[in-house]
């Protein structure tokens, strides 16, 4: 490398920094500089494509990791203590020994970090080694390189099904139109294909290297300018983002713009989020209590030492002077003793608690992810736990905010009904056939045991309405119908791909269809299974219609007439939204087959078999403001300019052509509106289809404007939207469609169960109120007998609300209702339906308190037409005002805000991509999984962790207090009667594993009971098991037990010739037994693992202590345990102390379980029964409750005692019922 002055180097580095920081990127092709030294490369300032996501390097792992770990306050405290050990005047233990616990904990954490980092390193390495093709000017062809060698300014060729290595500027594709299809599943999980067009005007061929050489790109955020002798253009930048996969395209060539860490994919990758659970926040408060306790104890010790020294008449024999022969004054000495005490009693602050909690959570997550019930066969997906440290929050949820589409429903759209030109086609056969089909599919599933059904399969099952079919074929009014279906086929962004394309995803489809073809018996079923069979079905039906009708319509040509180039069955549609796919499939079923789509044209095959190629003039894509999309095409025959628009009904209805006396149009519009309302009531998603014919002049003038908007540098989005709005006027209504979004499996059941568990379920949806209310009823969010308060801007509530000075009128009414004595023991069954605009008003500062108050009294709340932002605002409002634990569940990008605002975000990996999943803490594949996740795992995780933490505090306090009591008998000199090694082992070895096991594996109630009796979930809500009360009870217990464990041996050995360590041995042993037996009392379910670990701990204690007593000659307590173990007194003391120490807790549990009526205790009683008896119990009990609910809906209710179903079981039922009520 040639010499370069350091100054020049610095200048160069600074220049590089500037170049990187500027949002203007000046890129030059690397080709002319190939082979030159690195510092001569023009793009040297930009990062290369190697990625490194590891946090540490091998060399600096230890210092960096330590630095990281010391950011934690707790660790700093422990290090401070360790340093204190080295201060000579404090003279606690051997300082080196005191370092062991902190070192073990740091090492454990470091090992965990190192392992995680190593995994990152391995995945990085794999990624960096992937091959790709880079153009080399020497070789005059693309040569294979590794990903990490790709640099900014290179030309990269990506072949079909390859992953794009870096952010590329697409220059050339093998497609003649310069189109490249990409799949972004790696980035956002969306599996549909997207089109990208090569930069127009630079459609260079690879052989034309001259152009490649002189390309010089200037990129300003989002826009690209080429300075090139021949072409200077500004264009909206089209990237191939790194991480996408190229599909359906031979190959594509691109210019590397961003590489490595500067790619969009890497910038969006924020790594895991850190959330703090509520339990942990409470825990920190208790740690502070412990610190206060520790200080109190140390001050007592220090004062005691002072008084003890003061009480001495002269210097006694046992007072050892300092090295230089003088004695410290009592006050100084007691000052030092304060610190010695801190070191002696430091264990009171649970040093290993944090590490143990992390280990427990890893264990809990292991069990959650391994749960078979949370596994979805169809998508082969288990639950993913993204946030590792909030498992216990799952057990405390009070509010669930759910999205509707894709979360409660499957988001697999099925075309159900349509209305064309004011006439309704109900497609009634759909219903029964689908039922048959479902059965059939189920059978196939079992037969094939394939993991998934094709996603498209559901969408294709369209049963044709005979009347409509006749309409299409038989009447003269072909135009409108034809237009309707043409609109369905054209007005979308569906991409057609061939089923033959190499896509693993589509394999099951083939499997299914081939299977169906083989199994001849299936064809007898009326249900068309795949698009292919449905097409066949259609034709046969069509023929039969023809035969019966006896006339041949111009459009209909028998299928054998013209053989299409591609068999219709092989078409595969890739839609951005399932609605679109459903509509396209419908059109196809009726014979209007979308054959191909390029940016410039759409080819549609008509029922006649003729193919029409429409020239696409423009596509006005969907946005949430307009709520519609349009495609502007030129008809190949009439050469007319036609705008097809499709959108939400209210968005379209407003734009209809104002009919001058055209009564027909008006009638159509009102009829259609009627149908739409009817559809919405049925819970269908509605879309309106409209068209507009433009004259050429109109189009020309608009097109100019559109070009301006597209080319604008500032405010571009707004301009584009404006231009779209401008042309979407005076539409002519064609018809409307009703698409069904079916409820997911067992959603009503799940919603019911969650509500019984004391969780309020809110649904926040973007749909219209009618649809939402319908779905609400369908999923039993709303009950028929509910008092539904409908708040929308149109109703009079508006005036009441806007007049906010007056008292919110509904609230007192609601309160009166819920406080009505007749309704006391029921959950309030008031439901609230709010629409988006009203919600905006309610969220205003002066009304929000009342809104929250009202909502709290409602059993369920449904918010319709809410925006993503509103969703998150609602969640935040409830979370902050009511101080409750919230969970948000959703599947789409519009739920991301909400998911992030809630305490726990749950993403559903469904049809709408992965944004929700990526933002979530837990990702599930079905809504019903929520039930087990919360009721079982949530409950378990919470109760396990809460009990484990309480136990941990207790354990350390019980053990360390022994030392404290001893201070009263050793002149408060901070001496210990247990060897310091054994003390450290005690916490690190003998008593560390059982609580961790307890936290991972304990089961207070079985999963069946938790699912059967959702009320049990309520124990965790609110404060739950880990409260101020339970913490102090267990601390008191710790004090009591340590008093017993100290003073029973004390009184036994008082005045005898026992030496320090011989005295400490029974104390330590009693402590161990007490602590382990205490845990045994707390363990609710014993498995072989529990037995093994508890016994193992005891054995380990004896083995280590015995070995230590033999091996270690310098130990003053040499042979102590051995000597003790041959002394019967040792066993007698241990036995009685343990019994006395545990008696209160044992008794407490016994009395609690015998006398009080806590649901958990009841459930545990039931759990001991045989499964069959137990199930019967649960059933009986549930039916009883069902009756209670029936009763409450009937206001003239009778007292519960009259509800006795039969005399034999009534007693039981009443008891259980009472149990539950007393808890509610």
């Amino acid at each position, binding site marked *: 490398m040639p010499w370069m002055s350091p100054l020049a180097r610095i200048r160069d580095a600074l220049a590089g920094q500037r170049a990187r920081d500027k949002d203007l990127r000046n890129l030059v092709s690397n080709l002319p500089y190939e082979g030159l030294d690195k510092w001569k490369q023009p793009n040297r300032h930009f990062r290369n494509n190697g990625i490194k996501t590891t946090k540490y390097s091998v060399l600096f792992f230890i210092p960096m990791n330590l630095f990281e770990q010391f950011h934690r306050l707790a660790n700093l405290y422990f290090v401070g203590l360790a340093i204190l050990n080295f201060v000579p005047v404090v003279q606690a233990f051997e300082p080196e020994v005191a370092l062991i616990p902190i070192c073990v904990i740091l090492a454990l954490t470091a090992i965990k970090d190192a392992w995680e980092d190593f995994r990152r390193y391995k995945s990085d390495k794999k990624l960096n080694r992937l091959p790709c093709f880079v153009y080399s000017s020497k070789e005059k062809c693309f040569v294979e390189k590794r990903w990490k060698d790709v640099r900014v300014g290179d030309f990269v060729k990506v072949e079909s099904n390859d992953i794009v290595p870096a952010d590329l500027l697409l220059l050339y594709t093998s497609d003649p139109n310069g189109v490249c299809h990409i799949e972004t599943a790696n980035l956002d999980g969306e599996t549909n294909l997207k089109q990208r067009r090569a930069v127009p005007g630079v459609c260079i061929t690879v052989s034309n290297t001259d152009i490649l050489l002189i390309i010089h790109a200037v990129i300003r955020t989002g826009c690209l300018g080429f300075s090139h002798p021949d072409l200077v253009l500004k264009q909206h930048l089209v990237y191939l983002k790194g991480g996408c996969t190229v599909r359906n395209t031979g190959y594509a060539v691109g210019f590397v713009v961003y590489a490595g860490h500067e790619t969009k994919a890497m910038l969006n990758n924020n790594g895991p989020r850190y959330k703090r659970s509520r339990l942990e926040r409470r825990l920190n408060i208790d740690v502070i209590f412990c610190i206060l306790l520790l200080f109190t104890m140390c001050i007592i010790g220090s004062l005691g030492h002072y008084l003890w020294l003061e009480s001495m008449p002269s210097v006694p024999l046992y007072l050892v002077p300092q090295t230089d022969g003088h004695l410290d004054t009592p006050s100084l000495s007691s000052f030092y003793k304060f610190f010695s005490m801190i070191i002696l009693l430091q264990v009171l602050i649970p040093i290993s608690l944090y590490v143990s909690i992390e280990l427990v959570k890893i264990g809990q997550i292991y069990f959650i992810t391994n749960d*078979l019930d949370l596994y979805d066969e169809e998508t082969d997906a288990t639950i993913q736990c993204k946030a590792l440290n909030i498992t216990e929050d799952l057990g405390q949820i009070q509010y669930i905010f759910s999205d509707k589409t894709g979360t409660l429903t499957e988001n697999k759209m099925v075309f159900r009904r349509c209305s064309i030109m004011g006439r309704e086609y109900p497609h009634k056969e759909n219903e029964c056939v689908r039922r048959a089909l479902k059965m059939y599919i189920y059978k196939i599933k079992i*037969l094939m045991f394939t993991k998934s059904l094709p996603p498209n399969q559901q969408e294709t099952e369209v049963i044709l309405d005979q009347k409509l079919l006749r309409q299409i074929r038989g009447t003269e009014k072909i135009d409108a119908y034809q237009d309707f279906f043409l609109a369905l086929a054209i007005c979308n962004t569906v991409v057609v791909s061939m089923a033959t394309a190499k896509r693993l995803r589509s*394999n099951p489809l083939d499997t299914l269809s081939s299977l169906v073809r083989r199994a001849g018996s299936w064809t007898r079923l009326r249900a068309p299974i795949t698009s292919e069979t449905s097409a066949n079905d259609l034709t046969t039906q069509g023929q039969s219609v023809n035969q019966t009708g006896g006339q041949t319509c111009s459009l209909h040509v028998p299928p054998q007439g013209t053989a299409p180039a591609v068999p219709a069955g092989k078409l595969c549609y890739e839609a951005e939204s399932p609605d679109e796919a459903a509509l396209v499939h419908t059109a196809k079923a009726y014979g209007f087959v979308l054959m191909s789509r390029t940016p410039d044209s759409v080819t549609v095959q008509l029922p006649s078999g003729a193919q029409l190629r429409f020239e696409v003039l423009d596509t006005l894509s969907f946005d949430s403001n307009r709520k519609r999309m349009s495609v502007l095409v030129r008809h190949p025959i009439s050469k007319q300019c036609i705008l097809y628009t499709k959108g939400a009904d209210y968005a379209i209805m407003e734009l209809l052509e104002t009919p001058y006396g055209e009564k027909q149009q008006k009638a159509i519009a009102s009829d259609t509106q009627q149908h739409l309302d009817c559809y919405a009531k049925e819970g269908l998603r509605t879309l309106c289809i409209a068209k507009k014919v433009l004259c050429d002049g109109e189009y020309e003038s608009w097109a100019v404007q559109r070009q301006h908007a597209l080319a604008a540098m500032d405010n571009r989005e707004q301009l584009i939207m404006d231009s779209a709005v401008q042309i979407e006027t005076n539409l002519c209504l064609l018809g409307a469609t009703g698409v069904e979004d079916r409820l997911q499996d067992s959603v009503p059941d799940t919603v019911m169960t969650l509500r019984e568990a004391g969780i309020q379920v809110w649904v926040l949806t973007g749909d219209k109120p009618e649809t939402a209310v319908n779905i609400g009823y369908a999923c039993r969010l709303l009950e028929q007998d509910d008092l539904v308060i409908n708040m929308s801007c149109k109703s009079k509530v508006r005036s009441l609300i806007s007049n906010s000075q007056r008292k919110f009128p509904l609230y007192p009414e609601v309160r009166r209702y819920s406080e009505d004595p007749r309704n006391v023991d029921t959950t309030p069954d008031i439901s609230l339906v709010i629409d988006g605009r009203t919600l905006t008003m309610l969220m205003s500062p002066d009304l929000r308190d009342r809104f929250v108050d009202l909502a709290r009294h409602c059993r369920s709340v449904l918010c319709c037409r809410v925006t993503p932002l509103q969703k998150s605002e609602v969640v935040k409002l409830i979370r902050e005002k009511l101080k409750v634990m919230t969970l948000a569940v959703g599947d789409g990008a519009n739920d991301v805000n909400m998911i992030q605002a809630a305490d726990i975000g749950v993403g559903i990996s469904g049809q709408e991509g992965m944004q929700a999943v990526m933002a979530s803490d837990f990702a599930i594949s079905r809504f019903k999984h929520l039930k087990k996740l919360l009721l079982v795992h949530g409950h378990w995780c919470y109760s396990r962790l809460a009990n484990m933490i309480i136990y941990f505090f207790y354990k350390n306090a019980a053990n360390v207090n022994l030392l404290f009591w001893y201070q009263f008998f050793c002149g408060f000199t901070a001496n210990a009667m247990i060897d310091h090694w054994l003390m450290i082992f005690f916490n690190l070895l003998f008593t560390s594993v059982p609580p961790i096991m307890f936290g991972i594996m304990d089961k207070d109630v079985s*999963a069946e009971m938790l699912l059967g009796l959702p009320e049990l979930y309520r124990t965790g809500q609110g404060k739950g098991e880990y409260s101020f009360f339970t913490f102090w009870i267990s601390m008191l217990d710790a004090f009591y037990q340590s008093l017993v464990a100290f003073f029973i041996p004390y009184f036994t050995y008082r005045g005898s010739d026992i030496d320090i360590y011989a005295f400490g041995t029974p104390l330590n042993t009693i402590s161990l037994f007490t602590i382990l037996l205490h845990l045994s009392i707390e363990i609710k379910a014993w498995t072989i693992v529990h037995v093994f670990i508890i016994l193992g701990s005891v054995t380990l204690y004896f083995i280590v202590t015995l070995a230590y007593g033999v091996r270690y000659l310098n130990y003053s307590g040499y042979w102590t345990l051995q000597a003790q173990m041959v*002394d019967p007194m040792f066993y007698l003391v241990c036995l009685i102390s343990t019994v006395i120490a545990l008696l209160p807790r044992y008794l407490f549990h016994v009395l609690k*379980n015998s006398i009080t009526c806590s649901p958990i205790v009841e459930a545990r009683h039931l759990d001991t029964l045989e499964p069959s008896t137990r199930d019967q*119990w649960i059933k009986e009990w549930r039916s009883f409750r069902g009756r209670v609910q029936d009763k409450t809906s009937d206001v003239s209710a009778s007292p519960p005692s009259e509800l006795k179903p039969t005399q034999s079981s009534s007693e039981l039922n009443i008891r259980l019922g009472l149990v539950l009520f007393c808890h509610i």
Partner: protein
Amino acid sequence: MMASGYNAKDEDGHIAVAGLGGGALRSRKPENTAFKQQRLPAWQPVLTAGSVLPAFFIIGLVFIPIGIGLYVTSSNIREFEIDYTGVDVSSPCFNCSQNFNWNSTKPCTCSIPFYLDQSYESNVFMYYGLSNFYQNHRRYVKSRDDSQLNGDPTELTKPSKECEPYAFHEHKPIAPCGAIANSMFNDSLELFYIDPNGTKVPVPLSSTGIAWWTDKHVKFRNPGGNPNLTAAFQGTVKPVNWRRPVYELDSDPENNGFINEDFIVWMRTAALPTFRKLYRVIQKRNGLMPTLPRGNYSLDVHYNYPVRSFEGRKRVILSSISWMGGKNPFLGIAYVSVGSVCFFLGVVLLFIHHKYGNRSSSADMSH
């Protein structure tokens, strides 16, 4: 289910796609094992009055006899205690306790007469007891060098820092070093039986067998292999407070130096500030004679050990031997009371079980 899946695939073996689809994607389905599904067979005890009743009665029934046994054993132990501190003016040792000087060469002796109204039939342990002596003071406990005591020759001449300031005296290493050794109890006690005719008959006191066997034979060792202890301890000095060097503690070479049992006993620091340490054993001589017949005795004390500085007391205890050590009724009482309490609780629980038990066990009754 897995099996059926496999069979199905076999039947349709020639459908290539099915094989491909199934083979290319490894199922992420969790294993259906009892452990992973948290379905390990478990025992779920529910502590209720009914189920724990037996435990309480058993505890009661076991503890009360144990307690009675302990109490009887304890009361059968004969203990006789003489306080010879000399705090009272009337006490024979008053003079000695007042004029104490570590350096005085002339030992102060005093003699305390006492009367045993019951004879000791078997072996008798003779303890000395100190009270208010904090042998468990943190610095005191640490002020020793176990390696030195184990006969490590390098540690002999270079005592550990823990021994400071009793490690060196006039630049010579102290053996044994440290505060514990320095403050060793050095009263010598002799017991005389006073014949009815007035002659003082010395009671033979055995000074061996008072320390733990492991301490004497493993933990404590004299330095070097040299049988001549004087030579072995060459170059060291005696602890400041001692009158004789360590190698002159006893005339018996097996009980001299670091393995002197009085020394070993002292080095096992007491757990509590009031303690006793075994001083001598009075062996039973022959079958018929009691070890200590009833009658008058005299305790002759070479009063060397000062306790006035910490208001301590010095005692001599004569105790008969039993398996439970010294006389202490506490444990017996504790057992009896805990046993009774448990029994009583058992009765209470029986009552509770009777009253509420139907409620808890009605589940069983209903079916």
